């Protein structure tokens, strides 16, 4: 294999000849209940010493045929089910689904609802990236403490969400043509306080990690993904931008009201683990910028389109594909309507499932301990991978 061409020669000569350790390949099954796999996920790994020679991901342990369930229920009825896809980012799942149905039925969303959608989506991105970094560092061996810092901040965001929707994780917040309930002035004031405090937390977090020698040694030059392969393999989200490809659906599609905000798209250079880590840190800074602008500009008004129907909702026959930039990549919903109250076809385009396509390419020739953090950097949630 070409990967091995530039590697130092194997040191098996040092081992005694004969016996079990004589350069034989070892096949192990990592998972499904392995703490490093972020859920119920299995990798069939073939090892040459500590180097990965072959890696096949195995899915389906959480498969419940979400799409079939959604085809058997009404359009609005599957809104709570979308929460369970990527259970870290229920708000963005809600938004992607609502956006697709609004495209299918041609619904308009009031201004205030658009602002609130942006606010909750960016908060979701903040807490997802914060936790991801916590998990990522945990995978590298910094057990416990950094993750608890991340979860401390996440808890503040979840408190806000709980106050708004009544649930910590399964929000069921968006409706076709608006939202389920409005935010209060008090809520916005507390959000503003959180946003102001978040920069300080990020400074602290960066101070902890950005120049940490172990982190640099473990991540720089590891798990490199080339630009061309990333595009060809439909990689999206921070993974794609870490390779230096400028593609953010918030800028490309300008869905919702994202064209009104001034923010930048951080790009990586090498496509290695360090870039993927830093992209997330920088994206959080940009999210804070968007939140500040949204809090400044949010108008008063209705939060739900008065013409939108909740009961007896039957879109005209046809199809629509809507997509948003979720925290993990492009989250899309493809819907076909035949004019009945249920969707004829309901498809989720799950970003973390498709981002796993190139897991083997990134891990080949790396150490098995690096394969763990490479998987961590993909940022998967098995509720979405298996659906």
């Amino acid at each position, binding site marked *: 294999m070409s990967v091995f061409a530039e590697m130092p020669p194997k040191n098996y000569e040092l081992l005694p000849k004969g016996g079990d350790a004589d350069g034989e390949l070892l096949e192990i099954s990592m998972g499904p209940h392995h703490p490093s796999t972020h859920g119920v996920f299995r990798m069939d790994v073939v090892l040459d010493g500590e180097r990965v020679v072959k890696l096949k991901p195995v*899915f*389906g342990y959480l*498969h419940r*045929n979400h*799409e*079939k369930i959604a085809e058997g229920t009404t359009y609005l009825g599957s809104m709570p089910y979308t929460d369970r896809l990527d259970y870290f980012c229920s708000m963005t799942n809600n938004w992607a689904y609502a956006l697709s149905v609004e*495209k*299918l*039925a*041609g619904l308009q969303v009031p201004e205030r609802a658009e602002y609130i959608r942006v606010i909750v989506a960016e908060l979701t991105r903040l807490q997802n990236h914060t936790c991801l970094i916590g998990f990522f560092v945990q995978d590298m061996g910094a057990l416990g403490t950094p993750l608890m810092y991340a979860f401390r901040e996440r808890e503040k965001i979840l408190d806000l969400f709980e106050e708004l929707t009544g649930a910590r994780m399964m929000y069921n917040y968006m409706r076709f043509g608006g939202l389920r309930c409005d935010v209060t002035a008090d809520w916005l004031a507390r959000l503003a306080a959180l946003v102001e405090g978040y920069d300080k937390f990020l400074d602290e977090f960066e101070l902890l990690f950005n120049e940490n020698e172990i982190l640099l040694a473990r991540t720089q030059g590891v798990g490199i993904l080339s630009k061309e*392969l990333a*595009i*060809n*393999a*439909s*990689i*999206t989200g921070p993974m794609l931008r870490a390779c230096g*490809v400028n*593609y953010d659906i918030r800028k*490309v599609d300008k869905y919702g009201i994202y064209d009104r905000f001034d923010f930048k798209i951080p790009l990586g250079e090498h496509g290695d683990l360090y870039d993927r880590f830093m992209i997330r840190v920088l994206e959080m800074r940009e999210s804070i910028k968007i939140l500040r602008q949204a809090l400044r500009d949010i108008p008063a008004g209705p939060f739900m389109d008065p013409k939108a129907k909740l009961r007896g909702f039957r*879109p*005209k*026959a*046809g*199809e*629509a*594909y*809507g*997509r948003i930039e979720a925290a993990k990549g*492009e989250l*899309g919903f*493809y819907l*076909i*309507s035949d004019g009945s109250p249920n969707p004829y*076809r309901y*498809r989720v*385009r799950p970003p973390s*499932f*498709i981002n*796993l*396509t*190139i897991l083997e390419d990134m891990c080949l020739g790396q150490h098995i301990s690096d394969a763990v953090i490479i998987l961590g950097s993909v940022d998967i949630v098995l509720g979405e991978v*298996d*659906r």
Partner: protein
Amino acid sequence: METLEQIKARVEALWPNARLELIANESPSGQRSLLVDNASALRIAEFLRDDPELHFDYCSNVTGVDWPELVTQTKVKKKTVVDGVEKEVEETVETRRPEYLEVVYHLYSIAKKHGPVILRMRTENRADKANVPSLTPIWRGCEFQEREAFDLYGIVFDGHPDLRRILMWDEFKDFPMRRDYVEPDDYEYEPTPHDEVMEKAKAHAAQGGKP
């Protein structure tokens, strides 16, 4: 971006044998699609990816859709002359949609930042000729998604490097996303003696094991 009509014309000029069809979409989204024939799908996909104007380097979404045979009866009023008198007679007209499985590809361009162009392919039937060419050689991102369509719909992708079940377990027999899929009485090998499951299994057995 060029319109679908322009793309169709260009493809047909390159390969006169290729059969393309525009599929209308009456919903407000207005996303129309391009139905391509299976024989020239791979060439067309390569053209869409490599053409400098179109440059669809990113295949976002791949999915299957099941269309079982559908016979719709519509009543049409027709004027006929009976015994020299003009009368309005109601007639039932039967329209039959043949059965097929469909694969849908959503293409975008990262370089040109346009899209989507929606490609569709159809199989001959839903049983023994459920074949379409795989586009994984063109876009690597189709790999897992085509496997998923194979797993859940039974669409066979010719030329796919690793066509196995992906979400269901390997021993599973049926295709659960099809419209006519019938859930088993019990997911265990033998019906467990819970009342509900046993009732279902008995009813099932009375029909000779047919759903």
